[in-house]
């Protein structure tokens, strides 16, 4: 709906408007378009310079053998992509990222949903519980990663002290290639579950009370019956949505890898964004880094398009 002045009612009876009036009207319209563009123009220029030219250049750079600082470069076609696909390091990075996502997404959704249901099942202390569980999502992850490192310290960390106290085996969690990725995933769940929780809480609020009343009449007396017949089916679209946004966040994990493991030991905790960073900015293999960026872009865009379809469905569903 726009408020631009209408181009005058062109009723057949009105013959009073002269050429001058028409010209004035056209001038007014031109002035309007100019003022609209003067408002939207700066944003458009910045979008082009800071988003669209860069994304096009990533594709272009990915097709060259350029190294940052070198004065020459040549077109190498898809050679970088062939190298990326064949590279053991990149394969490990992709596999690690997928495994990480496969742990973090269900873990975050199940815990986030369970906590949201528990909070919503009573009236007292709702804001308090919500605040506590949401805290990690907004705490600076770089700083909290350092706290996690202290917790996971092989000798003085609380985790190993507790395990030793209980007579259970302990480990050097961040230096052992078998435990490092699950531990990073656990930190990922810790960070994101509050986010999933608030999204589910919003979804729960949107379920009409009528549905529960109807379920009551149908004999769904138990909490579990109401959960099974009303709550979970109605949360389906929200759950799909949470699934995608948490998956996107998991794919974009960088801080914990950079601070805690630097991808090690070996390649055991290397993930896509860390590979992208290291190849592009530490090894300055610019062309190679750009092709990693392209692969990453395709994954994220594919997920986002799935999200867009889900959101479309949700609109129709309600």
């Amino acid at each position, binding site marked *: 709906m726009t408020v631009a002045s209408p181009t005058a009612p062109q009723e057949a009876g009105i013959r009073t408007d002269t050429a001058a009036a028409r010209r004035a009207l056209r001038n007014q319209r031109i002035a309007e378009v100019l003022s609209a563009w003067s*408002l939207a123009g700066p944003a458009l220029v910045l979008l082009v310079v800071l988003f669209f030219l860069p994304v096009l250049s990533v594709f272009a750079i990915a097709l060259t053998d350029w190294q940052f600082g070198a004065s020459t470069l040549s077109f190498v076609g898809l050679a970088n992509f062939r190298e990326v696909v064949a590279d053991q390091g990149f394969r490990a990075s992709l596999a690690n990222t997928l495994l990480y996502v496969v742990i973090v997404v269900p873990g975050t959704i199940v815990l986030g949903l369970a906590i949201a249901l528990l909070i*919503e099942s009573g009236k007292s202390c709702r804001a308090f519980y919500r605040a*506590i*569980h949401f*805290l990690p999502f907004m705490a*600076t992850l*770089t700083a909290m990663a*350092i706290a996690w490192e202290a917790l996971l310290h092989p000798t003085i960390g609380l985790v190993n002290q507790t395990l030793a106290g209980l007579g259970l085996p302990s480990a050097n969690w961040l230096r052992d290639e078998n435990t490092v990725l699950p531990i990073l995933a656990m930190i990922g769940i810790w960070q994101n579950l509050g986010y999933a929780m608030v999204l589910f809480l919003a979804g729960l609020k949107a379920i009409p009370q009528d549905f529960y009343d109807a379920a009551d009449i149908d004999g769904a007396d138990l909490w579990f019956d109401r959960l099974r017949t009303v709550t979970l089916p109605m949360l389906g679209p929200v759950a799909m949505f949470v699934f995608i946004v948490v998956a996107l966040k998991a794919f974009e994990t960088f801080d914990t890898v950079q601070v805690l493991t630097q991808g090690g030991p070996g390649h055991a905790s290397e993930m896509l964004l860390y590979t992208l960073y290291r190849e592009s900015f530490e090894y300055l293999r610019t062309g190679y880094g750009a092709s990693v960026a392209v692969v990453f872009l395709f994954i994220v865009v594919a997920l986002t398009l799935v999200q867009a379809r889900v959101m479309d469905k949700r609109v129709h569903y309600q």
Partner: protein
Amino acid sequence: MSISATHGLGSPAAITRHAILLITGAVILVPFVWMISLSIKPPGEIFRASFSFWPEHFFGIENYTRALTEAPLPQYMLNGVIVCGLIVVAQVAVCAPAAYALAKLDFPGKNLMFALVLVALILPHEVLSLPLFILGYQIGILNTYAALIFPYVVSPFGIFLFRQFFKTIPDDVVHAARLDGLSELAIVWRIMVPMSLPAIIAFGIFSVVGHWNSLFWPLIAVRDQSLMPPPLGIMAFKNEEAGNDYGPLMAASTVVVAPLIIAFIAAQRWFVEGLTAGSTK
């Protein structure tokens, strides 16, 4: 969710609810508690196997003093405030007029521009880092405040969110403002923005929290310690000076995390709204 009469505060179900949520909440808080606990302990107690939260010898003054003086921590915090502040001001200044044009004006190219906003919305920013780094290098602003700020001066999400809000403001309001002789730019700042304050605040929180916590781009954009925002600064502190000196390191971490936590506790509803607004894009 219907609560039957038996579900009073003392009922078994209510007690179970509180018990579970207190336990999960406690587990969630463990890293925060451990961080604060180590930040007030002397080295001797940190390296002794013990569970106590409170130290035998309170060493908080020493640790926090070292954190604030050995690393340029106040400088990091100031950098964070400057960078986040300039980014959010620039974003609102650029996005609000554009959002108004998209919501309330008619001009050729409008649909194309909105399509560009939607495409920019799904681009992960890390993918753009390489060309933005090269751009920053070409115009010679790497390793300055400008390098930390320039990639973010326009926010596709900001344009999108403000446009949604501006569309809900009745057209009559705009007509009336025009009759009063307000220019289009004045309508943006004196009518649309004040009437959309909840959206502006939510976006502001979303932006500030995101950039205060961000490590990826600052790691690329600046090298000088005097320019580092808090996450990058604390990483440098860990790598170079503190190493295994946990007391000051945890004190520094606490100082970095504290401002957002305090703001969050003070304005919980706004934070939840702002940070989840980002997901409804």
